[in-house]
């Protein structure tokens, strides 16, 4: 059978464009799958290794301050094996050329830290009292290099510090400056690391710690020790107690990885499935051409297995080439995605290690795709008896009658084309699918980045509509805040609102979530759901985002208990009804108005956030005024927030963009290949028409007319496919805190149609040229 395989190989060589197309289609699928799979595997491995290597704690407690020597008393609680305390506090970084309020969250370092170890680069022999290591992102943003002197304000005193390098903390891979902030922004908030003595001096907290890490005994659950911890630390004013899974950094990265996992397991798999189908069509068409030869081989006594084996060899060659071809680009894509995310999460390890397993997986997937496609293609021919396989397959039949009203408006060439389509519906459908696939993919995946831009614009245009947000160091009376705002110049509009960090409990579910106190009839901070509906904050209860409601397993009409040091002085929780659930696009927030605060909590309506809309072109003036105020802890500009929010979504946007680009490439290949094969297999038919006297122009008209109809059917078929892709994207890209509601944008539909039109036109032109280049005598000698 070696000679038969040689015949197959030479057939491949003769139809190299089709086979190269098939290999590229398979390679595109493998590239998407491998690149994205390896990316999240590497991200998961690296981040989990980071947590392990830094002895990430099981429980995190933040207190206002407590003596360091008291920390070990927590080990008396049954179920706690080890405890560790660290002093942390905020420093304000002063930059001569920068009007932003920049906060460095400073952490005390000791090489002997037992938990939540900090990595410093370069590793120091010792750290002086005025030495500081700063996060890489903040150093990059402000151009701070090792040896540079920086000025900070701490405890109302200005101090010069020397930057000694880069600091990484697994606790602060993704830290937001403020509970109401949507996303981390290293231009206003990131970490710095100092010696314990140096930070104690700066903060004036000698011998104190603020943050505690606890290691639980094997078999102990967080819920077993939570109450005991609260009771033991009550006198030190507990700000928060969090288990590992809910710790900001850990939650952020695991939540992100979960989303990636879902995206990678759903989207490339569906993409791959479509490529299998397309590859199957391409290979089946090619194998169909061997129908008579297969019949002849069977007549000579070749067994089905022998024939299948020869074609399987072909499948193996295609599969291996397809799997190996784009391994390098897959690595590049995975690395690109990883570096983007590693940078976002402040991971210390940017090395992207190639996983042999994913390479093998790529080849296996590619091989399986190819083998399945070839098997399905050959099976049909092999299973029929030899005599039958030596006859050309007859059309399936069915109605080929052109409706009378259509018949009237078509000329003879168009009628020939339409009749041919009606008699070969499968062939037409396959071409339509080849158009529908790229059309739907480009439209849906290409719309994602516009959707994210829109989400960002909605968040900082419709929901939060201000130029600058200022966070005060403490809550102040609303009237005082209004006085501050009235005294500022160049303010077009301003409002004061509040954001409280709270612990919300419902039955045995709890969440740390911000309670935002908004003003009624506000234009600057509103509650808006993902469908664009606005809600007014109420005084008879809270409106809760559906993400938070889902986590707490509550619904409208239920109540939640709220604990917050700034709201409930007695530390006894306040029960408050849920008066509405808002289908927010993102975040786990709840909202109330000032009157509601006064109604339910033993405090006055106070504020800690100032929202300012500057007069046209007066942003800098406002920033200057704010930077001179003393009671300011943070300042966010709209542009910075938009940029950081967009950065947060960037990796998924990149993934969707990759898929959109791959869809374009795969689409062009599919359209050309499938159209080409479908038309070329009719060479004999066109040759006969030419012999009968039809001109090239008339035959071109038949081909163009048919492909135009196929194209239109493809576009129509693409519409439900777009809908399906949108639901898949929504399912895969949504998380506990982010709900994606896909929208399709006309610009992407136009782009998708353009790509398909160009691909179709080029394909038709090349194919027509190919048809007319045939030798009539040769073609007519061929048996169909």
């Amino acid at each position, binding site marked *: *059978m070696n*000679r038969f395989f040689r015949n197959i190989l030479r*057939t491949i060589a*003769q139809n190299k464009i089709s086979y190269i197309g098939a290999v590229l289609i398979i390679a595109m699928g493998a590239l998407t799958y491998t690149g994205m799979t390896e990316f999240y595997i590497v991200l998961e491995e690296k981040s989990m290794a980071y947590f392990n290597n830094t002895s990430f704690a099981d429980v995190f407690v933040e207190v206002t301050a407590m003596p360091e020597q008291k920390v070990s008393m927590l080990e008396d609680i049954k179920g706690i094996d080890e405890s560790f305390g660290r002093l942390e506090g905020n420093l304000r970084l002063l930059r001569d050329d920068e009007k932003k309020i920049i906060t460095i969250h400073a952490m005390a370092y000791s090489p002997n830290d037992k938990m939540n170890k900090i990595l410093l680069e370069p590793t120091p022999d010792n750290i002086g009292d005025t030495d500081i290591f700063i996060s890489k992102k903040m150093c990059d943003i402000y151009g701070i290099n090792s040896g540079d002197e920086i000025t900070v304000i701490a405890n109302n005193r200005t101090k010069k510090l020397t930057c000694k390098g880069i600091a990484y903390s697994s606790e602060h891979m993704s830290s937001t400056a403020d509970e109401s902030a949507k996303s981390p922004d290293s231009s206003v908030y990131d970490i710095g690391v100092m010696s314990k003595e140096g930070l104690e001096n700066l903060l004036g907290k000698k011998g104190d710690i603020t943050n505690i890490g606890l290691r639980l005994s094997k078999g102990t659950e967080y819920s077993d020790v939570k109450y005991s911890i609260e009771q033991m630390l009550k006198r030190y004013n507990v700000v928060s107690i969090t288990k590992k899974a809910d710790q900001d950094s850990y939650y952020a990265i695991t939540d992100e990885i979960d989303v990636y996992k879902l995206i990678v397991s759903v989207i490339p798999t569906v993409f791959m499935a479509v490529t299998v189908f397309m590859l199957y069509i391409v290979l089946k068409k090619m194998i169909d051409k061997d129908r008579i030869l297969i019949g002849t081989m*069977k*007549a000579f*006594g070749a*067994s089905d297995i022998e024939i299948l084996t020869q074609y399987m060899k072909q499948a193996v060659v295609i599969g291996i080439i397809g799997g190996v071809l784009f391994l390098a680009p897959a690595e590049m894509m995975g690395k690109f995605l990883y570096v983007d995310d590693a940078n976002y999460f402040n991971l210390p390890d940017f090395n992207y290690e190639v996983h042999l397993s994913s390479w093998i997986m790529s080849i296996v997937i590619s091989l399986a795709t190819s083998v399945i496609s070839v098997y399905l293609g050959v099976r049909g021919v092999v299973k029929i008896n*030899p*005599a039958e396989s030596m006859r050309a397959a007859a059309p399936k039949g069915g109605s080929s009658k052109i409706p009378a009203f259509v018949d009237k408006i078509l000329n003879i060439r168009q009628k020939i084309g339409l009749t041919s389509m009606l008699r070969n519906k499968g062939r037409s459908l396959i071409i339509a699918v080849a158009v529908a696939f790229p059309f739907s993919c480009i439209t849906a995946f290409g719309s994602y980045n516009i959707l994210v831009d829109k989400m960002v614009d909605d968040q900082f245009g419709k929901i939060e509509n201000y130029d600058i947000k200022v966070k005060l160091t403490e809550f102040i009376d609303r009237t005082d805040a209004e006085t501050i705002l009235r005294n500022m110049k160049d303010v077009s509009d301003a409002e004061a609102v509040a954001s409280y960090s709270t612990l919300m409990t419902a039955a045995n579910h709890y969440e740390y979530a911000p309670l935002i106190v908004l003003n009624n009839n506000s234009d600057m901070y509103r509650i808006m759901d993902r469908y664009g509906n606005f809600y007014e904050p109420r005084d008879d209860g809270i409106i809760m985002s559906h993400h938070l409601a889902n986590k707490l397993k509550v619904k409208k009409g239920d109540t939640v208990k709220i604990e917050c040091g700034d709201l409930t002085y007695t530390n006894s929780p306040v029960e408050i009804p849920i008066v509405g659930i808002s289908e927010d696009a993102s975040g786990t927030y709840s909202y109330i108005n000032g009157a509601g605060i006064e109604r339910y909590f033993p405090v006055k309506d106070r504020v800690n956030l100032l929202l300012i809309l500057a007069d046209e072109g007066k942003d800098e003036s406002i920033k200057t005024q704010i930077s001179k105020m003393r009671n300011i802890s943070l300042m966010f500009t709209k542009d910075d927030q938009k940029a950081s929010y967009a950065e947060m979504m960037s990796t998924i946007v990149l993934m969707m963009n990759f898929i959109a680009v791959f869809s374009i490439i795969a689409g062009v290949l599919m359209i050309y290949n499938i159209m080409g094969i479908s038309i070329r297999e009719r060479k004999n038919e066109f040759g006969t028409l030419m012999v009968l006297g039809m001109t090239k122009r008339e035959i071109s008209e038949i081909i163009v007319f048919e492909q135009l109809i196929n194209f239109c059917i493809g576009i129509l078929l693409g519409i439900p496919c777009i809908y399906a892709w949108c639901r898949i994207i929504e399912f895969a890209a949504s998380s506990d805190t982010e709900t994606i509601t896909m929208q399709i944008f006309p610009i992407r539909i136009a782009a998708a149609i353009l790509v398909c039109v160009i691909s179709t036109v080029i394909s038709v032109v090349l194919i027509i040229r190919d048809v007319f280049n045939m030798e009539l005598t040769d073609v007519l000698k061929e048996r169909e």
Partner: protein
Amino acid sequence: MKEILRAEGLIKKFVSGEIVVNALRGVDFTINEGEFVVVLGPSGSGKSTMLNIIGGIETITDGKLFYNDIEVHNLTKSGLTDYRRKYIGFIFQFYNLMPNLTALENIELAAELTDNALDPKELLKAVGLEERAEYFPAKMSGGQQQRIAIARALCKNPDLLLCDEPTGALDTKTGVDVLKLLLDFNKKYNKTIIVVTHNANIAYVADKVVYFRDGHIERTDINEDPLAPDDVEW
């Protein structure tokens, strides 16, 4: 002469949707070892169907077919494959050569399927195309292609050679050459050959002539004194 093939009440129906075509309506015949049999009949009379059934490439709807001691009608799919591989050679009207194999490679292809294959190069020489060994089918005439197809079929060294319109696509002279080749193989190796054809003149060279009409055998003539191809008025 030893009986090699016996058919008893062969029936073949083709069913396509609601349409049933009775291709064979109960066919009985016997063929002896070394016979050169010609099957004649108009188009659609069932002669090719019968050839395909004998060759094991078409299944039987009803009836019995024996090849020596083999009950062909009872053979499984793999049994039929084995039967074709060991005993049967095929020659088709349109040659069915592998378009991407050279003339020699096409013959070698058949040699790979059997253990007692004849030498492909010798056969190429025997059909007078040794200088065309490296030619692809597309570069050869119809007669040359059919000669390659014959060499390919003979290369398997089959006991029963089935030829479906072997000269149908050829001019008279080439047809005669092809016929000579077949007869030569028949005589030289004592192989049984069945030729299905429209060409009534071929009947003159046959040992036995079977006439088909409407799916059954109309009559069978024994030719006591077959002519040599060159003696036939074509």
